[in-house]
């Protein structure tokens, strides 16, 4: 029982070079000898899996039942450190799931004991729903705050509402009766800066004054945003979706979802949107929602102590984020499923659904846009579409795919430049310059001067008789006596032609600026600028088709539907399809994107055009490069992310990927019972590996288990402090029974509790296809490679990523003959049937160059080459 005394409360030492060590209230429930049940672990079916795991547990533990149950009882005290992860490390999903099952079983078994325990178990069972409810509430409220504040600040660039300073332009003129049909946004309460400063509303002087004030505000908002990000929370910059994808796939970035990141991201997102930069708030809202999810999960021990369970909450939170960003709850759930999440059981689906519902409800009750909708650019169409229109829709899809491919290439090249050259040293200057260029070019063009959401709204809106913008300046037939809803196609007026010119310029401007904007060090989303680009292109195409149909209504394609006086083309619908196509080209989403867009428009009849455009844009985009912008950024930053969408089509074997390679020193292993504390400490100091396989003995080489570096360090250090008689020469014993020792030797140190006795193993001839699948589906962190039960090497997630990268670079040589591998890794038995002699894990008949090394686990900080 000494091993239990290893761990005492109050021990906390920052000895892993990590300033952000795990909070000390994390519990160790990782009992010795908990055997992982790989059959059920994928679905994490807590309730159903219980009995099965229980029996498995009993069976595989054999004689050690006693010790491990005692161990678990005694380990009730929180033990800091063991079972947690360092910053920038991958989690072991299997271990985490095991931990959770163990905890669940414990609570269940205690349930009957008292009313208090019963309450506790109820609280535990409900905590999943509670945490998603809180997350939904918070993300809805924050989205409302961001929407209202961003609208206000955007309009602050133009002027101010003198009667009530907190109103934006539209709200300022809300109750005014002075608005006219032509100039709907003018009212006496709203003062532009020129009116306030130089006292005149018209003329070149006021134009210049407004121009200067616009640039001034844009620059100051951008400067404030970037300096807040730099001083308080550098992790708040960017869109956040690539990092959230990586985190959800099982990576630790400490502080990325913390409260400071949340606060700074919320505050600076408003500033960044208001500064008129070509960015949107949708991606960052997902990050904000995930921060809420992470923070609230600290209230519930079920989620705060278990990284795998926490990721379920984060999946739900990201659904809530999209739900409030686009006002599309179902789209949010699908987005979480299709794009962000890595591990998405049905239970999480329902929770995501619920979180999206709660968040959308809260946002709706705040009613940030005053239109009783969740988004600014909500539109409703009633006109049908015709079969021949599929052709322009597909054309828009092609445009979207081309734009996506171009944007990904250009943006990644630019970001790589920022990452690798000196130019990345001046983030503040970069933001200021981009903001200045954007403001200077954007102001003269009315379409770029607008807030991007408003631009999208205007482009989506159909030209009824009620519209007065120049986009709707058609030559009207005054004596037409039709009613409002059904306006026939009309010839375009001068206003439309000038609007098309302005839109073309706006399109070029947006395309260029978005490439340089995405990735600067302020919160910046990609959805809105992409949609704006698509909407502009779509509107232009729409007007072109409309005019074509008007002037050539006798063409055979138009003949059937577009007679004179019939309303057959809706340019707004083209804008919508274009927006979906461009967004699809950039992100390569399909299902969730279509659902998001049709939730925006409230019409189910446009699903087919949307699907056609999105699918085309995905095909065209995939022809130029298979990864979407988020995967491209993940790869650029070298995050350890195993994409579940990619297929592994090569024929390599586990032995080709495993470390140590042939020229490397041998695998660093621990033996079960004949190493001393000093030996282990030396090994830890000399190597930088994150874990060590434990073998029976140097002679037999059979695998016993796997011990993590972090756990070893903590356990030894704590034992030296708290346990009597542990000195450098004490034997370390991972085995169940302490070997008989000479009488005068110091007490042995039992470390069986930190040993993972069920490390995942494959044989050296397992095809990599299967290994990659195992890593993806089970979320493994490392996997040992054995041959006849003898440890040959180890494969980590990083090795697999490197291997994939290598295969991508070089065309794979033709499949090597099967005996090729046999030659490289000879069996333990010689040709004469006798075991080969072994020394230090290396068979003696191997040459020096076949020495082996164990590769360090994913270590992001050095992974710039990935």
């Amino acid at each position, binding site marked *: 029982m000494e091993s239990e005394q290893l761990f005492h409360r109050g021990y906390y030492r920052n000895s892993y070079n990590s*300033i952000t060590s795990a909070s000390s209230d994390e519990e160790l429930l990782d009992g010795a000898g908990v055997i992982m049940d790989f059959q059920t672990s994928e679905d994490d079916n807590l309730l159903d899996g219980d009995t099965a795991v229980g029996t498995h547990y009993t069976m595989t533990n054999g004689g050690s039942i006693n010790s491990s149950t005692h161990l678990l009882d005694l380990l009730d005290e929180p033990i800091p450190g063991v079972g947690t992860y360092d910053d920038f490390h991958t989690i072991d999903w299997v271990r985490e799931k095991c931990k959770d099952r163990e905890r669940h079983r414990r609570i269940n078994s205690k349930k009957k004991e008292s009313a208090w325990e019963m309450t506790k178990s109820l609280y535990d069972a409900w905590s999943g729903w509670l945490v998603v409810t809180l997350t939904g509430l918070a993300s809805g409220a924050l989205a409302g705050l961001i929407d*209202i504040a961003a609208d206000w600040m955007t309009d602050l660039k133009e002027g101010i509402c003198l009667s*009530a300073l907190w109103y934006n332009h539209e709200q300022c003129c809300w109750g005014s009766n002075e608005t*006219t049909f032509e100039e709907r946004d003018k009212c006496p309460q709203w003062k532009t800066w020129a009116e306030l400063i130089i006292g005149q509303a018209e003329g070149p002087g006021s134009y210049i004054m407004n121009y200067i004030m616009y640039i001034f505000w844009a620059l100051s908002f951008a400067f*404030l945003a970037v300096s*807040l990000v730099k001083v308080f929370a*550098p992790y708040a910059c960017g869109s956040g979706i690539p990092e959230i994808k990586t985190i959800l796939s099982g990576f630790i970035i400490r502080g990325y979802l913390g409260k400071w990141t949340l606060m700074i991201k919320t505050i600076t997102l408003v500033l960044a949107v208001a500064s008129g930069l070509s960015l949107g708030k949708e991606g960052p809202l997902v990050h904000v929602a995930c921060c809420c999810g992470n923070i609230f999960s600290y209230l519930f021990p079920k989620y705060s102590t278990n990284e795998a369970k926490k990721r379920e909450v984060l999946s739900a939170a990201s659904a809530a984020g999209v739900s409030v960003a686009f006002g599309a709850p179902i789209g949010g759930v699908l987005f979480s499923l299709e794009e962000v999440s890595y591990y998405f059981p049905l239970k999480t689906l329902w929770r995501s659904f619920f979180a999206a519902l709660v968040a959308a409800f809260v946002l709706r009750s705040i*009613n940030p846009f005053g239109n009783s909708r969740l988004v600014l650019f909500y539109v409703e169409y009633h006109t049908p579409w015709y079969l021949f229109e599929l052709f322009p829709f597909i054309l828009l899809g092609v445009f979207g795919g081309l734009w996506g491919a171009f944007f990904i290439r250009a943006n990644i090249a630019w970001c790589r430049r920022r990452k690798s050259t000196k130019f990345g040293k001046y983030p503040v200057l970069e933001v200021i310059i981009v903001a200045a260029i954007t403001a200077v070019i954007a102001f003269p063009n009315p379409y770029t001067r607008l807030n991007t959401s408003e631009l999208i709204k205007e482009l989506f809106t159909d030209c009824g008789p009620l519209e007065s913008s120049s986009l709707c300046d058609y030559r009207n037939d005054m004596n037409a006596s039709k009613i409002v809803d059904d306006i026939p196609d009309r010839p375009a007026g001068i206003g439309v032609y000038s609007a098309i010119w302005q839109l073309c310029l706006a399109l070029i401007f947006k395309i260029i600026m978005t490439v340089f904007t995405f990735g600067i060090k302020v919160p910046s989303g990609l959805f809105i600028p992409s949609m704006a680009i698509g909407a502009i292109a779509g509107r232009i195409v729409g007007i072109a088709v409309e005019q074509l149909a008007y002037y050539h209504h006798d063409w055979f394609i138009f003949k059937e539907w577009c007679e004179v006086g019939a309303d057959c083309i809706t340019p707004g619908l083209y804008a919508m399809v274009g927006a979906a196509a461009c967004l699809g080209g950039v992100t390569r989403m399909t299902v969730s994107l279509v659902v998001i867009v049709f939730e925006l428009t409230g019409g189910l009849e446009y699903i087919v055009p949307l699907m056609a455009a999105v699918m085309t844009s995905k095909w065209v985009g995939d022809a130029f490069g298979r990864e979407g912008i988020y995967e491209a950024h993940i790869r650029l930053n070298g995050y350890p992310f195993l994409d579940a969408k990619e297929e592994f089509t090569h024929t390599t074997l586990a032995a080709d990927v495993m470390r140590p390679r042939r020229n490397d020193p041998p695998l660093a292993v621990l033996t079960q019972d004949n190493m001393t504390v000093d030996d282990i400490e030396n090994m830890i100091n000399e190597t930088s590996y994150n874990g060590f396989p434990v073998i029976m003995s140097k002679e037999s080489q059979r695998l016993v288990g796997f011990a993590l570096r972090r756990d070893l360090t903590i356990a030894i250090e704590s034992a030296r402090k708290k346990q009597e008689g542990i000195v450098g020469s004490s034997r370390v014993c991972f085995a169940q029974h302490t070997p008989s020792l000479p009488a005068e030797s110091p007490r042995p140190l039992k470390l069986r509790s930190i040993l993972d006795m069920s490390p995942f193993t494959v044989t050296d001839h397992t095809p990599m296809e299967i290994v990659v699948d195992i890593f993806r589906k089970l979320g493994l962190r490392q996997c040992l490679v054995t041959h006849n039960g003898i440890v040959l090497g180890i494969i980590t997630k990083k090795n697999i990523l490197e291997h994939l990268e290598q295969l991508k670079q070089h065309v794979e040589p033709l499949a090597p003959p099967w005996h090729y591998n046999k030659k490289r890794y000879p069996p333990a038995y010689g040709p004469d049937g006798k075991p080969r002699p072994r020394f230090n894990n290396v068979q003696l008949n191997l040459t020096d160059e076949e020495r082996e090394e164990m590769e360090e686990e994913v270590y992001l900080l050095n992974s710039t080459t990935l």
Partner: protein
Amino acid sequence: MATLWGGLLRLGSLLSLSCLALSVLLLAQLSDAAKNFEDVRCKCICPPYKENSGHIYNKNISQKDCDCLHVVEPMPVRGPDVEAYCLRCECKYEERSSVTIKVTIIIYLSILGLLLLYMVYLTLVEPILKRRLFGHAQLIQSDDDIGDHQPFANAHDVLARSRSRANVLNKVEYAQQRWKLQVQEQRKSVFDRHVVLS
């Protein structure tokens, strides 16, 4: 002790976050219930008709009365044309919550203001204070360590010092310094080494 303190801080921030969320929600509900006089409108947009130019009418009126006949006053056309004119008009009943907008903007601006003040304090005032307190020599030394005038550059020093003492104020300082170290680390990995978020 430090962990207890960290726990309290965390709890505090959680509580404040949920309070914020709840208050915004509550305000939205309250103002909905109150239906401020200026918070509802019926807006009718009437397109040009015959010799009349287009016009926008705006009136505080209940939802059931929100139609052209009640809102358009004075009616620009006479007799039989009224129906034709009104058929073209589109009337929309809209409501908003001015209290929510006001409160949201005030909350936002006050948080922004506090953050800005704190930022100014950390980047400008604190280094001067530290120079006064600890003398010139040490500052030069810590400048050498870090290499530039990043805020929080002396967090390591203070962290080491504050460990030895123990009272509530020091606990706060300790937590603050730990946070500063974290931010410094984040800043290094984002801006200097470019390993994340580039």
